[in-house]
């Protein structure tokens, strides 16, 4: 992973992104739903931005809740 401050998690559906935001916030993580950056996709979609330092926590939260995600990228 790069040393960017933020990373984004891309999902297959908007509802996946909403669930992921809710779960991450409940876990006290600083996350934000943002539009998928242009360099990652040209589709209209939202993704979850989190602090890169928290990426492992986010991944385990999503795995535990079985929220499928497409990819995780540095922002």
């Amino acid at each position, binding site marked *: 992973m790069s040393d960017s401050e933020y990373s984004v998690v891309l999902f297959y559906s*908007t509802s996946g*992104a*909403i669930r992921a935001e809710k779960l991450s916030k409940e876990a006290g993580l600083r996350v*934000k*739903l*943002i*539009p998928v950056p242009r360099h990652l996709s040209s589709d209209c979609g*939202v993704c979850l931005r989190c602090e890169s330092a928290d990426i492992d926590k986010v991944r385990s939260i999503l795995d535990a809740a079985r929220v499928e995600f497409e990819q995780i990228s540095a922002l």
Partner: protein
Amino acid sequence: MTKLVDCRGLACPQPVIQTKKAMAEGETVTTIVDNDTAKMNVSRMAGKEGYAVEVEEKDDGIYLHLTKAGALPEQTTAPAPPTEGRVGPTVVLIPSEGMGRGDDELGGILIRSFLHTLNEVEPLPDTIVFVNAGVKLTVEDSLVLEDLQFLEQRGVEILACGTCLGHFGLKAKMAIGEISNMYTIAETLLGAGKVVAL
């Protein structure tokens, strides 16, 4: 006593924030930036704060010399737009809590995306007006508060309809911008070069 702010290598909106901080400490500020977007954003904010901007492009960066001018630009620039034809402030009107109709949850996501993105694209609007349930976006615990704070720091004026805040019982919870009345809102919309109504 000029305060020097070196913003080379800093990402938006840091140059604006740091310059604004320096303005609070002195009358003249020189900000060094390394790209045109930062130059535009800092210059725009400085203009709104009543500073004269002198640009000096050097090999190692763009030097913005900011000097506090006597009068606030409100009076000097406000009457100007009509004489310049169609050029005038860009105003975004937000009349509901979400973007579009059909599904409230989706509308909420879209408005959050929209306000986040306003900080990443050009041009920046001059004013954002919130009316009806749109004012709920300007109060404590609003999910877009951080985005609105960035926009305000960059010089975007934020107006929230006082009647509407009162109607929802939210006046005491207002967390950003100014409480406004229909005179100001009507003048802002009619005096705009362009209104983007959601």
